[in-house]
């Protein structure tokens, strides 16, 4: 176990790490992956491996000629200084929101604009590209999220507190990767509200009628 890290038990899957390394995931998933990696050295190392694979795939392609003046044009670009990097956004330490998440959530936990989604659960949708969606969820201690299944993939990363579902217990830093074959009822543990970052690439399927009606309004 590496020093100073949380005891993370639930990690990203290989396809997600590979997709993130390749740059082919929806932005909402990238946010969950980058946030988890900020908390998990195990997955950080695994990402470096998949990036190494990407480098080898890239050098193995059949090269295609660049423009005749490409080198000169590139030198001109360098010398003109027109290619500037955006400065890294300011980030605070010791927030429950790791750096990449801070770029999407302005302010701290107390200043967030939560919207109730029923059963005491609140959410805040974060702006990303439309191919998937991501939200912060606040589940009061001891409360259950309505029983639901999944059409696509749902990633749930715990930031604070813990939840337990039919599969296992998920605490801060743990990520649950759910797909079509998982039907679950996550329950937040007693003691502390559970704050999660959850991304989906398809709407969830709720079992009860009432949550299905509510779904129309809350965009889960």
């Amino acid at each position, binding site marked *: 176990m*590496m*020093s*100073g*890290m949380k005891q993370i038990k639930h990690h990203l*899957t*290989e*396809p997600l790490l*590979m*997709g993130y*390394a*390749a*740059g*082919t*995931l929806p*932005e909402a998933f*990238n946010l969950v*992956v*980058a946030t988890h*990696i*900020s908390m998990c*050295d195990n997955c*950080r*190392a695994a*990402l*470096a*491996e998949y*990036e*190494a*694979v*990407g*480098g*080898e*795939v*890239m*050098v*193995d*392609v059949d*090269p*295609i*000629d*660049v*423009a005749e003046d*490409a*080198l000169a*044009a*590139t*030198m001109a*670009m*360098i010398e003109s200084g027109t*290619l500037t*990097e955006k400065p890294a956004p300011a980030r605070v330490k010791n927030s429950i929101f*790791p*750096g*990449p*998440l801070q*770029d*999407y959530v302005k302010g701290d936990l107390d200043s967030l604009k939560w919207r109730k989604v029923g059963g005491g659960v609140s959410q805040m949708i974060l702006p*990303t*590209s439309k191919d998937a969606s991501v939200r912060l969820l606040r589940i009061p201690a001891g409360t259950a999220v309505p029983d639901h299944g999944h059409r696509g*993939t749902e990633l749930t990363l715990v930031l604070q507190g813990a939840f337990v579902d039919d599969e296992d217990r998920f605490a801060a830093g743990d990520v649950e990767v759910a797909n079509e074959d998982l039907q679950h009822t996550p329950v937040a543990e007693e003691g502390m509200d559970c704050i999660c970052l959850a991304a989906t690439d398809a709407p969830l399927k709720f079992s009860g009628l009432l949550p299905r009606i509510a779904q129309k309004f809350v965009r889960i």
Partner: protein
Amino acid sequence: MTFRKSGAKKLTAEQATKRMAWVIQVSAVRDNKDKAAFAELFGYFAPRVKSFLMKSGASPDLAEECTQEVMATLWNKAHMFDPAKASVSTWIFTIARNRKIDLLRKQKRPEPEDLPWGPEPEPDQADAMGLQQETEQLGQALAALPEEQRKLIEKAYYGELSHSEIAAETGLPLGTIKSRIRLALERLRHTMK
């Protein structure tokens, strides 16, 4: 004599020489703004970056523009390259990937927090050499995969497969590079304490 003992490993060392040559070229760009070294890197990598971007869905014009920006970024960020953490091929790939997301997909790319490593010591030569060698071995192992499996991995990197289409067991020959990267991270965590 150690001289003769190295016979069996000679091939690997020669192949690693190519990668160490890239490392030296990047250092020359960083330290001396060496245009000849940059031209060498450009000659090898630019046509590969362009090809990779076109396979990822860029038009020839966009791929050309994007490739020049990737290579200019290499020049600008040469001071950030660490040969004990990545091969030059890996590093250029990540620059190209980020540019692809920006230009082709018009999305923001959330990046993990940097580790608070602080001022880093000069990378250990043996670590750098080891990582370069292992990346070369990874490349060879990849090339030696059965055709079907290799194509699948290529498609994943070109964006022709979604994450749910990438089989959970990719069977990638990650081998020793895995343990070296982990070891490097653990060592860095340890020195941070």
